[in-house]
């Protein structure tokens, strides 16, 4: 008997109706969806929409394109816009090239010792554990106006490091490790026999690299380039510290706001920055990421014959080794810098900068930073696991919305989020607090949030949610759906399945989400710099203040303490996962 292939449309309506009924019989899932949609809408979509509405509104509240036109003709904006693009393009290219060099050496070249591999490892992990702007700080301390090399060694009073050059160096050194790790993964997946086949028919090593390896990697390269491009554009802290007169969109927006210039223009500028990163993000996500996974599938079948040729090995190793040592040196300079009396002038040893950081802000900056990061970490991690679970394992109407918003949040530059929060909450949701006498706005206007640590916690959550969600999704995809079905079948409702089966199975991912979000939060600056006030102080803010004032010792001391806190947290995580993690009983693919 032949199965029929054409169906009247209304036949399928019964299963749809039944699925809907079953859905409404699951109040816990519904509650989760409502909470998530509410949170994402109020704390991600709404503030950004307010930004848009500010940019399209005249001072008396009418729709107008004047602000947009004004912004487009505004010299500050035009300069900043092109500066940002130029920097992003250059850093995208340099990071990709350096990352590729490191990955190639790591995967293809036989190194005599393990030292180089160790150096690479350190270089790759440092950017994760340190605040985003420490390299700027170190570079200024070496090559700035009072730099150790420029002034103390050569007696030069130069400010050449401030501006584009310094930015390119600092951003490249900060962002290339991500490219390196990406390429390393991709290169390892290339089957050596493809390249060896090319070698066999007489192609030189360079020829093999350019004609076989590189084309295979092309989508991956495009991907890494765009990711770095976005990072560079969204970067705020480095341009702030080492940018000098080279204004980028992120710093110009900040100056517009803090300099009490036109707020609507600031909103419009933020909007343009947002559109730029969104466009690049979409390009990366829906076009290149798909291609990258399409060309390289499966793992390499067997080992690769490593390059032993001295003519290749030695120069490459020396080059990469030198870069690594330079980068590590820059990080090491931070604790060193905190120990001298007055950098550039008086190199006598002292602990006074540690005393100073506690004297100036008290311990408040530390306790605030730690407390707020500690509060946001578990909430973020739990929420991202929940979102990941709903996205991977559940079917419901608003799933696409939840997935899209939590992913798109990744592309929102911190400074843009900061402004959006100000515009969105300073006078309550939709400015409703303006309808009430000063100081008497009721709770539901949410005006009370503004200026509190709670708002900072919300920003921390929004900033870390996408990363956590992405990791959660990856972890959940490895769990066979029948395990959860078995639990459901035995009588567990959605909530019970999540808490008793899903969460324990992705515990590793949950714990690492906890740490990632703690680290990201405590080292965050761009998104929160506009929300800092006497009631809420943050270490990162203090560091950047000290650096801008030229108190390098103070900046270094605070940064050293921050790095120690982060490092302690990571250590704690490793101990924790070792004893409580899931890897004991779940086989994972490497």
């Amino acid at each position, binding site marked *: *008997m*032949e*199965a*029929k*292939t*054409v*169906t009247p449309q209304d*036949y*399928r309506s*019964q*299963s*749809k109706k*039944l*699925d809907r*009924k*079953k859905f409404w*019989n*699951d109040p816990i899932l519904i509650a989760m969806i409502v909470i998530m949609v509410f949170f994402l809408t109020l704390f991600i979509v709404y503030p950004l929409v307010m930004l848009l509405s500010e940019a399209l509104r005249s001072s008396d509240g009418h729709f107008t394109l004047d602000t947009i036109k004004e912004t487009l003709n505004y010299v500050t904006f035009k300069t900043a816009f092109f500066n940002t693009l130029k920097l992003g393009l250059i850093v995208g290219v340099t990071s990709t090239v350096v990352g590729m060099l490191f990955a190639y050496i790591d995967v293809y070249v036989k190194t005599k010792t393990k030292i180089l591999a160790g150096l690479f490892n350190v270089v790759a992990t440092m950017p994760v554990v340190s605040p985003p702007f420490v390299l700027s700080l170190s570079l200024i301390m070496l090559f700035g106006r009072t730099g150790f090399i420029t002034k103390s060694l050569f007696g030069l009073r130069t400010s050449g490091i401030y501006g584009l050059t310094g930015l390119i160096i600092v951003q490249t050194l900060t962002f290339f490790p991500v490219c390196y790790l990406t390429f390393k993964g991709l290169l390892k997946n290339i089957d050596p026999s493809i390249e060896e086949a090319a070698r066999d028919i007489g192609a030189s090593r360079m020829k093999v690299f350019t004609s076989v390896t590189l084309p295979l990697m092309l989508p991956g390269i495009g991907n890494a380039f765009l990711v770095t491009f976005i990072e560079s554009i969204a970067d705020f802290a480095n341009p702030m510290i080492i940018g000098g007169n080279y204004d980028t969109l992120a710093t110009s927006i900040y100056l517009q706001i803090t300099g009490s210039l036109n707020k609507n223009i600031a909103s419009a500028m933020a909007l343009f920055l947002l559109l730029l990163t969104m466009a690049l993000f979409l390009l990366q996500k829906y076009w290149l990421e798909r291609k990258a996974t399409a060309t390289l599938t499966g793992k390499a079948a067997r080992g690769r014959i490593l390059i032993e040729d001295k003519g290749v090995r030695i120069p490459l190793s020396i080059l990469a080794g030198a870069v690594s040592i330079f980068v590590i040196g820059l990080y090491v300079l931070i604790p060193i810098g905190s120990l001298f009396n007055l950098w550039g002038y008086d190199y006598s040893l002292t602990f006074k900068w540690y005393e100073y950081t506690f004297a100036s802000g008290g311990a408040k900056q530390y306790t605030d930073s730690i407390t707020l990061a500690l509060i946001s970490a578990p909430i973020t991690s739990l929420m991202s696991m929940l979102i990941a679970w709903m996205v991977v394992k559940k079917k419901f109407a608003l799933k696409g919305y939840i997935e899209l918003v939590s992913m798109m949040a990744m592309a929102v530059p911190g400074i843009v989020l900061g402004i959006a929060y100000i515009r969105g909450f300073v006078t309550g949701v939709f400015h409703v607090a303006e309808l009430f006498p000063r100081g008497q706005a009721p709770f539901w206007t949410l005006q009370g949030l503004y200026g509190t640590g709670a708002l900072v916690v919300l920003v921390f959550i929004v900033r870390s949610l996408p990363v956590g969600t992405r990791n959660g999704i990856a972890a959940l995809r490895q769990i*066979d759906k*029948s*395990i959860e*079905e*078995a*639990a*459901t*079948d*035995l*009588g*567990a*409702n959605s909530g*019970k399945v999540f808490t*008793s*089966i899903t969460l*324990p*199975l992705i*515990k590793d991912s949950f714990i690492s989400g906890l740490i990632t979000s703690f680290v990201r939060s405590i080292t965050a600056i761009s998104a929160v710099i506009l929300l800092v006030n006497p009631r809420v102080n943050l270490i990162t803010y203090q560091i950047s203040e000290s650096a801008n004032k030229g108190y390098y010792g103070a900046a270094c001391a605070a940064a050293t303490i921050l790095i120690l806190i982060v490092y302690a947290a990571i250590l704690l995580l490793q101990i924790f996962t070792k004893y409580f993690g*899931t890897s004991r*009983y*779940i*086989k994972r693919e490497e």
Partner: protein
Amino acid sequence: METKKKKGIVLDHISKIYQDPKTKKEFYAVNDVSLNIEPGEFVTLLGPSGCGKTTTLRMIAGFESPDIGEIYLGEEKINEKTPDKRDTAMMFQNYALFPHMNVFDNVAYGLKLRGFKKDEIREKVFAILDLVELKGMENRMTNQLSGGQQQRVALARALVVQPSVLLFDEPLSNLDANLRVQMRTEIRRIQQEVGSTAVYVTHDQSEAMSISDKIVVMNKGVIAQMGTPTEIYYRPASEFVASFIGEANYLRGTLISLDGENGVIEVLGRQIEAFCHQDKNPGDDAALMLRPESVTLGDEGALPARVVLSCFMGAYQNYHVMVGDNLIKITDYNPKGKKIYAVGDQAWLRFNPSDGTIL
């Protein structure tokens, strides 16, 4: 182990439509399936891969919703119920044990959800582990168990909640052949002991034959035939069923007459009277289906045959013979002392027409 009130299952004209992910065409994964499963009965869904067995099972469990039709558990319509509210327990093909729990916690999971007290849970879990012969294993993690042991944990986990209906989706397909035979007898024994109604999915016909009260043969989403193992084996409704269940020989000819279940078929000029399903008319092309062990060779008989293969297999002599254009395979059991025909010999086909079925 006390048994509770048994419940039957009724599938009332169930269909499920899926979209082919590649061609985007909609098709019936399950097409107008009606079944009436008695309380306590062991029913097997048997058919080739992709014929809709799993989909049917998942509709009973509640993981999929039927596009047409209604499902009853006992007297109750259960179409709108979520899987956790249905009194069914399923054993999955890959066992789906909870990897973060030990054997005891795996088995106790369903009991905890039902709010049993601690010592009751202990009692029940130990009783069921005893039944599946896993005593003393309760503290093992599931990855420390062999395939057969894991399979029994999965069985215990499903049994311990004493569901009205037990659902099995090819539970033995990951085991090696010896263990498979052993486990299927065990599943049957335990099901009868517990008294739950069971729906069992497999593509292995010998498994289906040995374990079931009733077999439902499916093909491309529709029920090809439903009946006891003997009915399905000796009275298949179609050549598909006949060939899917064991070996089948066909003597092709024309149906001469049909009176009730008695048909007369003419094969190579000889008229043979045999059982015939009532979906045929006199004059139709037809075939007499005979199982290899229902046929032997002799020096005289119904139809002339030429031997093309003769092979001693120990338990039986294996022949291939040509009867006209029909290739007939014969397994002649206990051949010692019988006349053995060699390749090229002329012989006569001997069979009891009541063992055959006209298709």
